């Protein structure tokens, strides 16, 4: 007797299985939906650390080493002032910091709190001529090592790059930039939003002082207007999946904790970078000093996200072309602006590449 099932019978059986699985998921969705509503926000940034320094909006952390032996050169991660640095340390297994510690690096992080009214004047001068050099000095003191590697993410990368150009004689040992904007003419939508013929940045800053976090969030959301709604639909679809929900909530918390920006910084970045593209055109001055990227001579690693909608590759790629370093490398990896640092692909691709690059330059 021939027992081979027909193609239509296989399809039918498969559909029945899928239906059964969907019914089970629907039950789980309903049960876990209540849990979701009632449960507190997930813990983030749990890797043990010591607060080395606090000054207004600035915090400097030192993460506790886990390896028996660490590389000589410490790493200072610089976060963008729009967001909290716990994106580097979302959860065990999803933490760049945990990964770097396990691979034998000594890690320090510059994080930000919401600026107070008294800090509304803060501008690039404060970040690149005061905060970063001050933190580098503290890292030197704490580690007892003169050399420091600076790793900046997004606007943190921008500030680190400006710092590197303004302090070409050290003590910077290596510079690593993740998705760092250089040619702002390639940020089409942000430039449209900041068009001087329609957007009066002076008036906005003068009336607000501090740029509210909602305005920062809205400007990012406008780049992908449907993604917020689609992510909620996907959350509902995956409510049965604890791992998905936890991961979603951590990222959601990070997005929700977007920080307000000091008006001075917003004014300067809008006018000088978005409207005039002064950094790319070699006309940016910070504290009266010209920011010339060709003065950067330290080894450079630039990591660019292939599908970045905030800092498109064309905006980030000129960094490697412009610096004067002989030892420089650009890596374009598949991923978006955030997933390149904290997504599943980061674990597989970006982190090992970063570790591999740093190892031989950290001895």
């Amino acid at each position, binding site marked *: 007797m021939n027992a081979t099932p027909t193609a239509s019978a296989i399809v039918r059986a498969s559909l029945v299985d899928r239906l059964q699985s969907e019914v089970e998921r629907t039950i789980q969705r309903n049960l876990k939906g209540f849990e979701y509503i009632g449960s507190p926000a997930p813990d983030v940034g749990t890797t043990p650390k010591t607060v080395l320094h606090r000054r207004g909006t600035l915090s400097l952390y030192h993460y506790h080493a886990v390896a028996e032996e660490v590389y000589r050169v410490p790493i200072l991660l610089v976060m963008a002032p729009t967001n909290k640095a716990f994106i580097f340390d979302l959860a065990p297994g999803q933490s760049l910091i945990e990964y770097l510690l396990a691979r034998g690096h000594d890690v320090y992080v510059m994080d930000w709190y919401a600026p107070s009214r008294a800090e509304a004047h803060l501008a690039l001068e404060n970040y690149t001529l005061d905060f970063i050099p001050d933190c580098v000095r503290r890292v030197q003191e704490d580690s007892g090592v003169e050399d420091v590697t600076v790793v900046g993410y997004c606007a943190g990368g921008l500030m680190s790059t400006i710092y590197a150009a303004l302090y070409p004689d050290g003590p910077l040992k290596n510079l690593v930039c993740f998705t760092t904007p250089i040619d702002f003419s390639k940020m089409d939508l942000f430039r449209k939003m900041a068009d001087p013929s329609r957007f009066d940045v002076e008036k906005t800053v003068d009336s607000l002082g501090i740029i509210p976090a909602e305005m920062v969030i809205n400007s990012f959301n406008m780049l992908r207007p449907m993604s917020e709604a689609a992510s909620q639909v996907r959350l509902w679809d995956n409510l049965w999946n604890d791992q998905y929900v936890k991961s979603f909530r951590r990222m959601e918390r990070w997005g929700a904790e977007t920080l307000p920006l000091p008006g001075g910084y917003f004014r300067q970045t809008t006018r000088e970078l978005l409207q005039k593209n002064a950094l790319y055109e070699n006309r940016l001055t910070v504290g009266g000093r010209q920011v010339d990227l060709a003065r950067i001579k330290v080894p450079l690693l630039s990591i660019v996200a292939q599908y970045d909608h905030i800092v498109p590759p064309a905006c980030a790629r000129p960094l490697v072309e412009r610096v004067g370093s002989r030892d420089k*490398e650009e890596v374009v990896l598949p991923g978006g602006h955030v997933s390149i640092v904290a997504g599943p692909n980061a674990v597989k691709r970006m982190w090992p590449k970063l570790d591999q690059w740093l190892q031989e330059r950290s001895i």
Partner: protein
Amino acid sequence: MATSLNLDPFDMWRQAVAQLEEGMNMLGTQSLKSDEVSKTLLEISTVSLQMQHVLEKALSKYFKAINLPSRQEVSELADTLRRIEDKLDQLLPAAPQANIPRPARTRRPKPDAPTQFAPGPNPRAPEPKPRRTAGAKRMRKEAR
């Protein structure tokens, strides 16, 4: 013969959501590129911010008149307190810090260390250097 036709309605629904998202995002970003839409959005945003500012000012005056702090002031006070607490923590004897491990800074890269790195398409990226040479060390010294 295997067929690539997807008959799973749940998968089809998920694909439809992804396609809708992509289409709407594209439409949204295309509209933002048009002068009229970006101008209108900016005007809405400016008016809304100005209204918010005026409202905040009026509320602040009202709270001042009835001798009460505004939410903003309470939040700023809480921030200040948090910062004072952080400073106090740093001023206290650093007993727990003594227990933080301070390993020797003698680690060297292992030449045969396994790596999971799988680079994406990047025609411009040079091959990674295997080890630093004496020439590279000299270059670094010169650069510094």
